[in-house]
């Protein structure tokens, strides 16, 4: 998919939570997140984190020079979850 787009002239960046899969499929540009499957953009209601993840990915799209470069931004799942719980509390959700 990503390869097809690059071949058609569109620069792409993909997000991954499974580095071993990424190593096999060799996407042109990708960014790894040590997150739970299905939670590539973080945790519910954490708008700032969701936004940061997109911005980091776009930054990689601009900055990567070599095909296959994987970016490792400094997000952690433990921190994301903790912040997510605090945000939910502040919103009065459980």
């Amino acid at each position, binding site marked *: *998919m*990503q*390869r*097809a*787009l*690059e*071949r*058609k*002239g*569109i*620069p*792409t*960046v*993909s*997000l*991954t*939570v*499974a*580095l*071993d*899969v990424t*190593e*096999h*499929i*060799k*996407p*042109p*540009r990708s960014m*790894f997140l*040590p*997150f*739970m*499957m*299905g*939670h*590539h*953009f*973080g*945790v*519910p*209601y954490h*708008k700032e984190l*969701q*936004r940061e*993840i*997109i*911005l980091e*990915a*776009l930054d990689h*799209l*601009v900055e*990567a*020079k*070599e*095909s*296959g470069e994987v970016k*490792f931004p400094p997000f*952690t*799942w433990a921190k994301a979850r903790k912040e997510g719980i605090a945000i939910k509390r502040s919103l009065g*959700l459980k």
Partner: protein
Amino acid sequence: MTETSKPNQLRLEVWNTVNERYPGSMISKEDFVPLSFLTKPLSESKLSFVSTSGVQPVGTMPFDTVHPIGDYTYREVPSNLKPHELEIHQLKYPTVGANQDINVIFPIERLQELAQEGVIGGLTDNFYSFIGYNMDPDKLEQKLAEDIADAVVKSGADIALLCPA
């Protein structure tokens, strides 16, 4: 970054697990395709989003989650929709977060905000979504991937963000 500073993935051995269960379903590559590069600043570039999340507009034909060989269709998701106008049909990844806030897997509101603020030049009229359960790797690569890539090109996208769920 050096090898040692790589953070660990949360769920280990995804590749081996899938291959053990569904041998031959994963596509392995030995080479890297040459990169395309931006031709204008990000703030002038139109972004498209492609997702395997099974997100689709409410009321469109649900993805075929029961078919043993998979579903090779995709849905156009208008990029101006609100989360309550979207639903998810898929069985293969945990939607515990997405059920509360769809932006964790399909960040449509965050992308709308970034376009509104001028961080990116805009969004293509549609985003593209399909499901990840596909047992025919050739059809996936030669038909579905090409179909979506053609649609993205036609949509006038300058850049694409991809998220395999």
